[in-house]
């Protein structure tokens, strides 16, 4: 078990070191992070997603979706409650 986790930890650091060398359009950060790593970081901090969608036809409102979602890892939520 420990071997697996240590191996993954090593993999992460080496992945961060071996940046992709392909040319990026101006304005993009030089660091290339895999989406899964980005999601991991976002969940570690926690995010709130809000949205308001109304579907209407011919100016008649038919369906409304009101969204307020909290996305976070359980560890982060537990830490927040402990404060």
């Amino acid at each position, binding site marked *: *078990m*420990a071997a*697996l*986790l240590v191996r*993954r*930890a090593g*993999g*992460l650091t080496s*992945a961060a070191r*071996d940046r*992709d060398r392909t040319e*990026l*359009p101006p304005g*993009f950060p030089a660091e*290339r*992070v*895999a*989406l*899964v*790593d980005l*999601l*991991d970081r976002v*969940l*570690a901090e926690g995010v709130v997603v809000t949205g308001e969608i109304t579907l209407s036809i011919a100016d008649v409102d038919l369906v409304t979706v009101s969204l307020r979602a909290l996305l976070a*890892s359980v*560890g982060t939520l*537990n830490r927040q409650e402990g404060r």
Partner: protein
Amino acid sequence: MTHPIRRRLDAGDDPQAAERGLASLVLTVVELLRELMERQALRRVEEGTVTDEQAERLGYTLMRLDERMNELVEAFGLEREDLNLDLGPLGTLLPKE
């Protein structure tokens, strides 16, 4: 080696290719979630908010899932690299090996 998204939706006339295309799409989503959970589990172990027994079971289960993914990929005639999408300027879905 990663492929653009467009390629995995192009099944062509071959039913085998259609099956492979669908399998790679589903397995890509599963692999993303598996790797995400692996990273979150690693965070928890590093924080020390799981017991040694829980850490043991987490590691064992994630290892078994990884092995199982290898079997599934092989069963559908795919490679592990096929599950990594090139998202263009966003980079790749999973880190490159």
